[in-house]
């Protein structure tokens, strides 16, 4: 069974003359364990598609299924629970909570996922150690480099063992060496834990590491290549 199934998804913003179709009947299926890249020029609808798959937004028309559940049938709290437990997010600007330490940022993800184990702290530390930040638990984001912040974001996304990790241009704000190192970590997690990754990116290096590259142009899938 596909982890993600998008069927005929439309997303329209504005009304009348100001109407803009960000997606125009997109259909895509993503299998468990895939390392998929959505590419395309700016304004092609990449982020919109990721928003729909990540349950951050709903399609104007069409259907989005996650692990067989039609998410358009779910209400706010149910969608929040789904995001908390089954989806990890990694953002271009890292999006760490600045007042929390690295460990607390990761622990927060566990708490929101209603992880009730007494070892939340240890799990958060293990997740940070897995991305190579074993000695920086107590640093706040402003005390970390961009690459370190993105590693914390990766640990935060993975600590709850989600079914799907959505990464929106995760290397765009990193230099090529750091971006490559972050990508290595994600690829490793994908291979070791069979976690499904879905990226949006322009970065050819990311695309080169993907199992599959889907190209979006003007809200339509114009290419879907397996690597």
């Amino acid at each position, binding site marked *: 069974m596909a982890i993600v199934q998008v069927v005929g998804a439309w997303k329209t913003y504005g009304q009348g003359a100001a109407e803009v179709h960000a997606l125009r009947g997109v259909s895509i299926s993503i299998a468990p364990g895939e390392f998929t890249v959505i590419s395309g020029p700016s304004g092609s609808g990449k*982020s919109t598609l990721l*928003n729909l798959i*990540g349950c*951050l*937004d709903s399609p104007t028309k069409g259907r989005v299924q996650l692990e067989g559940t039609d998410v358009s049938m779910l209400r*706010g*709290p149910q969608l*929040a*629970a*789904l*995001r*908390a*437990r089954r989806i990890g*997010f990694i*953002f*271009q*600007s890292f*999006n*760490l*909570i*600045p*007042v*929390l330490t690295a460990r*607390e940022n990761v*622990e*927060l*993800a566990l*708490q*929101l*996922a209603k992880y009730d184990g007494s070892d939340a702290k240890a799990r958060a530390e293990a997740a940070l150690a897995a991305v190579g930040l074993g000695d920086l638990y107590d640093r706040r984001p402003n005390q970390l480099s961009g690459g370190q912040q993105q590693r914390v974001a990766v640990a*935060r996304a993975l600590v709850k063992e989600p079914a799907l990790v959505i990464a*929106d241009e995760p290397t765009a704000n990193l230099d090529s060496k750091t971006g490559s190192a972050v990508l290595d970590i994600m690829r490793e997690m994908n291979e070791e834990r069979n976690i499904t990754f879905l990226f949006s990116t322009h970065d050819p290096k990311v695309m080169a590491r993907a199992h599959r590259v889907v190209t979006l142009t003007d809200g339509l899938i114009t290419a879907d290549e397996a690597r």
Partner: protein
Amino acid sequence: MLVRLAVRNLSRNLRRTLLSLGSVIAGVAVIILGQGFVGGLEENTIRAQVDTMSAHLSIRPADYPTEGLTHPVDALVPVDAGLTAALDSSGGKWTTRTLFAPRAVHRGDSIRARAISYDPVRDPQVFPREMWNVAGEIPTDEGVLISRGVARLLELNIGDVFVLQVRTHKGAVNALEVPVAGVVSVGSPIVDRFGILLPRKVGNALLGIDDGLVSHVHLRFPNRNRSTAAEDLTPALPRASEMVTWQDETRAMLQMHQIRRTALNILAFALLLMSAAGIANTILMAAYERVREIGTLRAMGMTRRTVVSLFVLEGGLMGAAGSVLGALIGGAVVLYFNINGIDLSVALENASGGNVPVSTMLYLEFSQLVIAFAMVFGLAVAVMASIYPALVASNMAPADAVRA
């Protein structure tokens, strides 16, 4: 984690948080101080009236005037055996006084005074003298005790002799030379400005009345709120006399204090409304500064309700801290003046309205209930003020907020 997040968020813009906190502190402290002040004034009024003029219950001639220096002695209350028995079995201490308004003359100067002819034995049991400041002695047989006001106006000293002129009980004119045995300040302008205190023997001689006739009978009970005393004494009440309680005597003044209390509450409410606006502004600014963070939290699975809780918690923490600090400051000031009092003697000496029952020492009322109310009110205002910005934050679309 939510509490930790809220606390740390508040420390992000410390200056802004402290300004909002200050307004809550001020609002809560003003409520406590204002209530303490008005409560103290109420108690002060009651104490001045009860301890110097009326005790807890008074029997006086019917339609006795209550304004100015008007103390007629043509109609008096007979203290007969029946009344004495009823007073003895009332459960309180009692005494009798005769008030009159003589002209006091000394070396060509004269003033209209308020004279109190007292029972030397019973009077101290009903009107406590701990607060009296006496130079010389309190006469029990001969001589009179004059107030500081009279001493100053007539330039009288202890041992001087002056003249008291009166209309007697029968309407004749009488005058008596009396020596000053002492100068007193009782702590109430009613007595301290124009008061002259005379032992019963001197007073009766001046007014030409027998022992059994007085203008007032005063009772003092162990508990001033004893409600059945008046009913118990009614059957023994002499004809053409009336009974008044300390509540009757202080009602008009207390109503005035009630108006003051209401005005103060309105002021405190207005202050807390300003605090509310400050808190709402602080939280709203915080919400707009943290749009991406809110989006991230929502993407991570935080529900809208939890986002609301987070922002309300931030407002609530500000309110709680402000309320506690406001209560500590307001409570400490009230407690200090509850113990040490505020000396109003200079202000009262220069003020007009010597008929107003006010004690020269004002003790603020320290009420734990008022403090608790002010704290809860401060907290509630802060929480309510943060609801709107919290809703604004929770309504942000996560897809847009996350990339803001």
